[in-house]
């Protein structure tokens, strides 16, 4: 029954989506406004139906209705209720439904918010959103049906992969999907602007908040994924340049480039074609990512099921690229750029360089990700491209980006004078170089980390210096005290100050990555009870093993007493869990995190008979905590940038 309701809702929603695609065309041909109104109705109808379908699946998961295959595969009777709900995105079919659900929520919001605005643009925006929705609904209804039945009905389900039963896995996929889907909105506005041929800045200004929001979710989705990898997967790393990680990261690059380059178009009317291309590429990459992960064409840690879904996504991707760039070419005459760069030393050129670097990074990551495919297709040679490629290629590019973060927001538009440069950058540069000198004398002799820390310091100083100047000016002129001057500044120009806070967050992440990439220590050893392993300033003594039966698994815990510089800092208990449904045990690392470094213990094996020996892996990773702190700062900055202050809406 639940399955029938769910599947029927999806099929009807698909028909409504088709109507949403056709109605604007009929409306514009016949000139009847009524058809435009039906497009909106079609979107709202899809919203209700997809919500019904998703609720049905959640209901089936919660009530463990094992007559539905998806439920039987992703829950058991023992699964706690919250993991039953999150089973919605535990596998492919449900994930697609969640994606479509978020998409149609966004589309509904767009239809509702802009009900009486953008009369020309809106029907086409809704048409594009309906097209994307129609594609997802078709896949869900006909190729990857989450409501498929199973007979005979099993007594108990197989359950979620235990690795996914984790609080971060509850948030990681929805965050990422929200980011992906969020990019659909600016894409839809861009395409609508191309269709009606009104290519001023309206579509950019309208979608500004949507783009920032999508970017934010994309950033958070990737960071939570890294966090999960670090805290749950138990290998001591947060990023492996795995194809699936790359798939999630790649849309972030053109989205970031887009956020910056639209400012150049708003301000100077330049880069029109470029901005349209960026948003097309960013949106296409969200579809490409799903194709890559679901088609099984590339080996990956993230073993997903494969099937016809990959081919469908590839076809849709081709359709998007051809139609979008075709439309762009068709409107080429209306996209003649206005003024050219006045000077190479200006904010425009800093932003342009930022874009070149981001797109270069995208290209290199894309190439590295698909190189095994190219190699096999062209030369018939099986190869793999490892993390060293991605690191050696992207590190110089990202360092250049860090430098630009210190320059771009402060340098003058059009043409920076020598005075402007001196006023904005002399002191920050001096301060950063002083820090570099200190670091060089006392700590860091390696070039890349030293450069990373110096550039980060430069960004922080240039942001603080610029803000301090602005605050001082307000204090002098308006007689305000420092705190209220800062608040007024941020409210008057929230995008700027929000952006600067986000930059500070990025710097924290850069520091964390630079520190942990360059100065990690790794040791592994097999210890008898009572033996001690020394790692850096830590001494780790093995004190024994303990096994116990848990509700869902058998647990083996090691007890390791840790001494930091001779002081005892407690007993660490890394764990191996044996699930009856899994072939191999699942490790649970333990770690102690401080702002200087993380100590990370992994139990990788033990002697089963005497239980007096354990194989331990120990990692000391400096500054990792700064990455997560950076994520929080980015969240704060995004809030500053998009918070709907009443007065600033007027003053902008």
């Amino acid at each position: 029954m639940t399955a029938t309701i769910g599947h029927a809702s999806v099929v009807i929603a698909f028909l409504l989506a088709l109507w949403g695609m056709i109605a604007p065309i009929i409306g514009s041909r016949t000139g009847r406004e009524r058809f435009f109104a039906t497009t909106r109705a079609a979107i709202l109808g899809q919203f209700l139906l997809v919500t019904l379908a998703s609720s049905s699946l959640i209901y089936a998961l919660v009530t463990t209705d094992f007559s539905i295959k998806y439920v039987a595969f992703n829950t058991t009777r023992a699964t706690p209720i919250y993991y039953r709900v999150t089973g919605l995105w535990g596998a492919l079919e449900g994930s697609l439904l969640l994606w479509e659900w978020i998409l149609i929520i966004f589309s509904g919001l767009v239809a509702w918010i802009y009900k009486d605005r953008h009369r020309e643009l809106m029907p086409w925006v809704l048409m594009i959103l309906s097209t994307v929705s129609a594609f997802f609904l078709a896949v869900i209804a006909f190729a990857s049906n989450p409501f498929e039945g199973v007979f005979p009905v099993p007594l108990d389900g197989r359950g979620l992969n235990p690795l996914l039963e984790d609080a971060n896995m509850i948030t990681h996929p929805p965050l990422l999907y929200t980011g992906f889907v969020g990019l659909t909105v600016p894409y839809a506005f861009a395409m609508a602007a191309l269709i009606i041929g009104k290519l001023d800045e309206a579509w950019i200004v309208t979608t500004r908040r949507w783009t920032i929001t999508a970017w934010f979710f994309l950033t958070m989705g990737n960071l939570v994924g890294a966090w999960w990898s670090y805290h749950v997967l138990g290998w001591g790393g947060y990023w492996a340049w795995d194809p699936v990680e790359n798939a999630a990261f790649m849309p972030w690059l053109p989205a970031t480039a887009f956020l910056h380059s639209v400012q150049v178009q708003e301000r100077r009317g330049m880069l029109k074609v470029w901005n349209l291309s960026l948003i097309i590429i960013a949106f296409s990459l969200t579809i490409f990512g799903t194709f890559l992960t679901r088609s099984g064409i590339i080996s990956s840690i993230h073993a997903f099921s494969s099937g016809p879904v990959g081919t469908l996504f590839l076809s849709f991707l081709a359709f998007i690229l051809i139609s979008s760039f075709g439309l762009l070419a068709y409107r080429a005459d209306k996209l003649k750029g206005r003024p050219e760069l006045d000077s190479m030393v200006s904010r425009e050129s800093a932003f342009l360089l930022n874009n070149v670097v981001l797109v270069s990074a995208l290209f290199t990551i894309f190439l590295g990700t698909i190189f095994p495919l190219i190699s096999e297709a062209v030369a018939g040679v099986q190869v793999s491209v490892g993390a060293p490629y991605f690191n050696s290629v992207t590190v110089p590019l990202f360092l250049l980006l860090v430098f630009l973060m210190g320059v771009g927001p402060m340098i003058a538009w059009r043409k920076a004078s020598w005075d402007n440069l001196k006023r904005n950058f002399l002191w920050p540069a001096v301060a950063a170089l002083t820090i570099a000198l200190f670091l060089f004398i006392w700590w860091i002799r390696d070039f890349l980390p030293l450069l990373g820390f110096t550039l980060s310091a430069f960004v922080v100083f240039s942001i603080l210096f610029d803000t301090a100047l602005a605050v001082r000016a307000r204090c002098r002129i308006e007689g305000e005290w420092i705190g209220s001057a800062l608040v007024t500044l941020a409210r008057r120009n929230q995008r700027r100050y929000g952006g600067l806070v986000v930059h500070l967050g990025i710097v924290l992440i850069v520091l964390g990555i630079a520190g942990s990439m360059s100065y990690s220590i790794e040791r592994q050893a097999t210890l008898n009870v009572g033996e001690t392993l020394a790692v850096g300033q830590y001494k780790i003594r093995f004190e024994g093993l303990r096994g116990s039966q848990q509700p869902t698994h058998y647990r083996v815990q090691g007890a390791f007493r840790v001494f930091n510089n001779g002081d005892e800092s407690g007993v660490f208990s890394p764990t191996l869990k044996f699930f009856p449904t899994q072939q191999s045990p699942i490790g649970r690392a333990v770690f102690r995190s401080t702002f200087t470094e993380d100590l990370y213990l992994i139990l990788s094996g033990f002697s089963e008979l005497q239980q007096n020996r354990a194989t331990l892996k120990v990692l000391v990773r400096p500054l990792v905590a700064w990455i997560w702190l950076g994520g929080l700062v980015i969240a704060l900055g995004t809030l500053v940038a998009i918070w709907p202050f009443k007065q600033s809406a007027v003053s902008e």
Partner: protein
Amino acid sequence: MKSRSRRYIIGGLIVLAALSYLIYTGMQDAVVYFVTPSELKAQTGTSDRFLRLGGMVVQGSLQKDLKKLTYRFQITDGAQSIPVHFQGIPPDLFAEGKGAVVEGKLDSVGIFQATTIMAKHSEEYSPPAKDHPASRSFVPSKETQRP
């Protein structure tokens, strides 16, 4: 106008050259070829390249020293087998008679010095064939991945 567009072209070329250089040098030590024991045996001379060697761990060939964390075993594709040395912690699924892919270099005496072991993720194993690339059905273990 003319000189301006020329400036963009020159800028673009510089960017392109820098990027190509980065990609080329990056690929040099990061592209790892996949070989079978027979292919490796057929190679003459030693090479300094990193390789991935895939096959089945020969039944009864595994000698491990848990104290030093060293593993010695043979990898076979049915026709040829290659001795492998590994120091570290292999993935949980690594066992005799199961499929494995090891990453490393062949040393001068013909022993494959592995830095990484990847075990096969699913139960069924089919020997590597051209139309069924073994490298795809293997899942690298994150624990043993190079930093």
